């Protein structure tokens, strides 16, 4: 029921916005950016870009949206785009989260892709606003050389533009690139460019026309763990007897420069910081507080190398795959844990409940290529609906677990390219009558009762032909 309505809504919205743009495409160029500052953080394998734009309305009519432009090579790797509007001056600044949506614009040069920021209040003529934009790129660091030995450290390329790509005229702009260490092999110079410590500064550049682009290439050392989960399936099973069981199946890969030649365990054991600098051994998973019965295993049994630290606010599970992961190596494993139900399940109205859980991957600083969340509702629950703060694919399944007769409804949420930025809460609403909790115990009891009755009957029946 939910699906088609939602789709229709979305379609209507798109149509509406398209019309809106067609009628007002001239307004696009009425805005100009008086100052743009971009900070690119390359310290992990997730590229985080903080963009501060000061937008001015140079036109006559009020503008209610600002368009961001991305080169097509970046859009595929773009995991999340967030925008905040700043209000007030200096110390009393407050941030207002703004809605961001991908949009299509006609006659985009070189397949440029766009995201539109919808302003809370339309920007009147000659007014200005400061926007803070954060976007994250995954798989954007290309290892070069592509294959390294055990003791070599990993060098990567980062490609971008020295100038902020924008459909607007930019009066003044600066770009800072932060590298994880001072070891920078080379970088493209677009004067004025200078480098200090771990930071490379491009700019300031004055007065660039819309769609100005100046390709740069930074070649630097990055030994942070390139932990990529190719596929993560999180199954959240709700039991109204008081437990929330979470099972997470990981397919982990080291996405950095491929390992070449031999792996010497002796070398690795004796000096892990030197022999195996590009590898990683530990991963940290941040789990909810009051977690219990944690297990960490794979298809051939328990993996004995993990540590769990719990306190009242969070639980940290430090897991170590069976072997240190070098570039291109893979590992699969399962983490499971139980949680007290009252922390996550709430009643919204009569018989209507909702479970509130975190989206995203509990592992710190990892990219998930494909995330599937399955919320297994108790047997007998009806009308499920999910509320997720960002677009996801969803559908329903049925699962049979312990002694189920009609099966449990499973709400499946799927999302590609997930970064830690997606670790926000989502809700699944459903209707459940508590009487269903007694179905299975009653079933068992009656089965045993019938068995004993059958036994008694058997003992008292004489089936012999002759007396």
């Amino acid at each position, binding site marked *: 029921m939910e699906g088609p309505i939602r789709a229709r809504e979305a379609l209507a919205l798109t149509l509406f916005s398209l019309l809106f743009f067609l009628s007002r495409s001239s307004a696009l160029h009425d805005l100009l950016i008086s100052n743009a500052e971009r900070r690119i953080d390359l310290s992990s394998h997730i590229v985080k870009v903080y963009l501060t734009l000061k937008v001015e309305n140079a036109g006559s009519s009020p503008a209610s949206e600002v368009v961001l432009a991305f080169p097509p090579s970046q859009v595929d790797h773009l995991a999340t785009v967030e925008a905040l509007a700043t209000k007030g001056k200096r110390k009393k600044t407050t941030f207002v989260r703004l809605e961001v949506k991908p949009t299509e614009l006609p006659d985009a040069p070189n397949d440029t892709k766009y995201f539109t920021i919808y302003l809370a209040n339309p920007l009147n003529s000659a007014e200005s606003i400061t926007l803070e934009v954060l976007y994250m790129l995954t798989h954007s660091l290309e290892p070069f050389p592509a294959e390294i030995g055990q003791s070599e450290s990993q060098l990567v390329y980062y490609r971008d533009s020295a100038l902020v790509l924008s459909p607007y005229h930019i009066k003044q702009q600066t770009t800072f690139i932060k590298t994880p260490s001072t070891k920078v092999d080379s970088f493209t110079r677009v004067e004025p460019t200078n480098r200090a410590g771990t930071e490379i500064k491009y700019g300031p550049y004055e007065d660039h026309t819309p769609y100005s682009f100046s390709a740069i290439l930074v070649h630097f050392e990055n030994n942070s763990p390139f932990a990529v989960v190719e596929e993560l399936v999180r199954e959240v099973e709700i039991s109204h007897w008081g437990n929330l069981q979470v099972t997470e199946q990981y397919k982990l890969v080291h996405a950095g420069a491929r390992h070449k030649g031999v792996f010497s365990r*002796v070398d690795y054991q004796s000096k892990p910081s030197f022999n195996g600098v590009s590898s990683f051994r530990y991963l940290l998973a941040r789990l909810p507080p009051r977690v219990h019965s944690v297990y960490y295993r794979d298809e051939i049994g328990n993996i004995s190398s993990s540590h769990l630290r719990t306190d009242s606010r969070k639980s940290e599970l430090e897991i170590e795959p069976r072997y240190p992961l070098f570039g291109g190596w893979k590992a699969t494993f399962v983490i499971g844990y139980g949680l007290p139900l009252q922390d996550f399940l709430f009643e919204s109205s009569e018989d209507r409940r909702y479970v509130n859980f975190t989206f995203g991957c509990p592992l710190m600083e990892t990219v998930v290529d494909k995330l599937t969340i399955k919320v297994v509702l108790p047997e007998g629950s009806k009308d499920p609906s999910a509320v997720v703060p960002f677009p996801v694919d969803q559908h329903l399944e049925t699962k049979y677990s312990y002694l189920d007769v009609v099966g449990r409804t499973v709400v499946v949420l799927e999302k590609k390219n997930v970064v830690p930025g997606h670790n926000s809460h989502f809700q699944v609403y459903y209707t459940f009558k508590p009487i269903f909790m007694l179905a299975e115990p009653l079933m068992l009891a009656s089965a045993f009762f019938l068995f004993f009755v059958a036994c008694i009957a058997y003992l008292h029946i004489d089936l012999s032909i002759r007396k």
Partner: protein
Amino acid sequence: MAAPEASSAAVPTLMTNNTLRNAFGGVLSFFILLLIGVLAFSIRLFSVIKYESVIHEFDPYFNYRVTQFLTKNGIYEFWNWFDDRTWYPLGRVIGGTVYPGLTLTAGTIWWLLNSLNIPLSVETVCVFTAPIFSAFASWATYLLTKEVKGAGAGLTAAVLLAMVPSYISRSVAGSYDNEAVAIFALIFTFYLYIKTLNTGSLFYATLNSIAYFYMVCSWGGYTFIINLIPMHVLLCIVTGRYSSRLYIAYAPLVVLGTLLAALVPVVGFNAVMTSEHFASFLVFIIIHVVALVYYIKGILSPKMFKVAVTLVISAGLAVCCAVIAVLIALVASSPTKGWSGRSLSLLDPTYASKYIPIIASVSEHQPPTWPSYFMDINVLAFLVPAGIIACFLPLSDASSFVVLYIATSVYFSGVMVRLMLVLAPAACITSGIALSQAFDVFTRSIKFQLPGLSSNTEVDAGETSSATKEAQNDAVKTEKAEETSKDRPSRKSKKKEREHVEKPSTKTKAEKKRLLALPLEASVISLLLLVFLGAFYVVHCVWAAAEAYSAPSIVLTSHSHDGLHVFDDFREAYAWLRHNTDVDDKVASWWDYGYQTTAMANRTVIVDNNTWNNTHIATVGTAMSSPEKAAWEIFHSLDVKYILVVFGGLVGYPSDDINKFLWMVRIGGGVFPHIKEPDYLRDGQYRIDSQATPTMLNCLMYKLSYYR
């Protein structure tokens, strides 16, 4: 199950005043049996609690993999399964070369659970199959011993079997091997045989054939049954105990059993073609001749009968000679004289080490040492003689079977340490009989000596009507056994003393029947000593289950000053192979790791623990003991991309590949004569340091182990 049986056995005693008492005994023995089952199951869970729920060792991994295949692809695919991931490039027909009993059992349990929507994994089912079947086995022991010497002996034997270390060693949780279900099948087949022998019922005879079929499905050790039962039948005939019940117990078993056995692909026509089965056919002929003789004797007058006997014997001798000559010729014409290598090494203990190094290289095929007897059956070793004596007082068909069983299994266990497993149930049954009889005697004399006990009347009754004695004892014994099982947890003692007490007691049993009394003090002291003995056994069994037999061997642990240290290197290697090599890569390793590599790493191996092709193993052995260049050529011809070598030098793990290396040399040299064992030995000593011979220092195994 047991409660109705026990009570129905007790009801026909015609002692109406004791009906309630008997019913109470039946319920009591039912609960004792239930507890015995729980004990048998839970004592085997040490491995899960101390380590984890995981499949153990080598062969269980293969069985686990077969079960996975079965549950995934169904039974028809399973029969036709040609496995191309092992014995590369030959492959192996799994469906036709594996004993399917265990796999089918676990597969059925899994299917049953899943159709009830209980989503247990195949691995969990496999891990717990062995403990479940040990509970079944102890119940089967109860039934068997009850048929032989009554319910009291049955319960004692069941308790003993539930925790006999020898059986625990093969059936801890995770030890998913054929023996786990086969011991149950073995005991149950014997039970049904004895039951048929006692009742002469064709119903039980048919059940017996089916149980035998299950045993054939489960384990190669079924040949033990098909030789032991004919031996017993022959014994009965020779001692003049032939009866129609014996005929009913034996003839259907041979006919139906052989037909059913031939249905199992791995046995097939072997059921009629190999010499292991010939004894049963020979006895089958003999029992028919005997039956015919008895029949003729019945219809002829004694004089005519004598004439007939002389006639038949002269003619029969000639025919027999001819038949035997043909048989011998047939047997002699086959290369191993119709006997397979493992069976031959049973008859001639030196056979294997002389001719087949691959059989000799397996530690469980070695003859056991004396300490291993004490380790594996503990005090039972001292109770067995007493039990044998008890079996002769009085000797029945059933008790003579037990005597024969213990005698043969003692011999076989002396040949191969692995067959200690067959000895264990026999030892438990005889010890159960001994203990139960001893308790019976002592408590009876105590009761007799203490005045004012109501049981006096009962004792008198037992004295006067010896015919009803057996049935009446049931109730008494039940209580005794219950007493022992309750008192168990808190005692300690020595077995020597109890030996002294025990022997005279059984000997004097005959006169006690008249006197019905030992001195009170002697009885009490002997009872206490028996109780101490039992306590010692329990303590030993729990220790053995917890410490000695529960390590899964794929995970090693060591206790250091800062706590438990876990070596999980095997699984680390297998996991790495699984995730980081191509699906079709070939992995060469010594055959020990073959099953685990295919199951845990899912990669194709060259040789595995099935060891059906000696030449192939010898090729790998040769490659391992050749210089690098020659080895590379051999492995290249086998498409090998990875070699798995276990090196324990760093942590001091004793059973690594360099320790097994001499066997590789021997097995390799057995087929390829250019590998000579003396080349690897310095002055007859195996050295791996700088004193080693140049051949040794240059061989692939050495280079792989010490590559720097």
